[in-house]
């Protein structure tokens, strides 16, 4: 009886370790393929993508976890600005284009073109270069 229990326990443990290994491996392979642009992937970082969507949709809460830490006062001021911006619909995004990117070591850079219409109805066309490291956007140009 004890032997059978030990056998089942050992088998469950082996299976569990295998599941964890499979999960981690497929996650790492997915990130590698996405970042390298293999198999038709754009090379766009999901972190940079989420950052740009959060920025254009004026949702600071969506990007709070993927940018450098800010003080409580900075976060409050940003939320206030986003609320005011949404209330007045001061900007209207017209397009968001991922142009491309590259990486060196743990640093990667991702470049976007943004077309938006401001409160005065004037179209603005400009770019963002986001530097990503350690799962966060550490720089925005």
């Amino acid at each position, binding site marked *: 009886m004890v032997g059978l229990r030990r056998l089942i326990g*050992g*088998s469950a443990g*082996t*299976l*569990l*370790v*295998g*599941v*964890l*290994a*499979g*999960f*981690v*491996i*497929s*996650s790492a392979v*997915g990130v590698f393929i996405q970042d390298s642009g293999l198999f038709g992937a754009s090379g*766009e970082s*999901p972190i940079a*993508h*989420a950052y740009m*969507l959060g920025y*254009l949709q004026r949702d600071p809460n969506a990007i709070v976890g993927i940018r450098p830490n800010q003080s409580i006062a900075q976060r409050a001021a940003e939320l206030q600005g986003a609320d005011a911006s949404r209330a007045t619909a001061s900007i209207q*995004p*017209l*397009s*968001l*284009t*991922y*142009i*491309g*990117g*590259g*990486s*060196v*070591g743990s*640093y*990667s*850079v*991702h*470049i976007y*073109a943004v*077309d938006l219409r401001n409160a005065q109805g004037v*179209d603005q*066309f*400009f*770019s963002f*270069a*986001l*530097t990503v490291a350690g799962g966060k956007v550490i720089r925005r*140009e």
Partner: protein
Amino acid sequence: MATLALFAVGILGGVVLHAFLEKGPAENPFPALPKVDEPPAAHDFVAAVGAEDAQALSKMADISILTDLDAALQPIVDVRSTRFVGAVESEGRLLSAYVVTGKTAQGIDFVVGFVLRVANDQVVGVN
């Protein structure tokens, strides 16, 4: 042998579980612009950056563009390579994007991206 097979089954289960749970990034709700060829003026400008040819660069751009370029390249002080990654155009306004690798003042390998604004076959701005 049975343990190894069980481990393999576990790995397969992990891969399936990951595929089920990982939904990937949200779709882009905004339209994307088509890519265009690299503008020749931007190509020449970046070639001078890559060659660290300050003489040529000084003849291609005014001081405000050079100041913006300096800011865009920070913290790289020693450019090792430049690569064109794409260009897009909207109503006659062209943006041409580049990735630059190099070393910082501390000798650390770094990568930065910058975008040249091009109009009338001239570089009119950086980022």
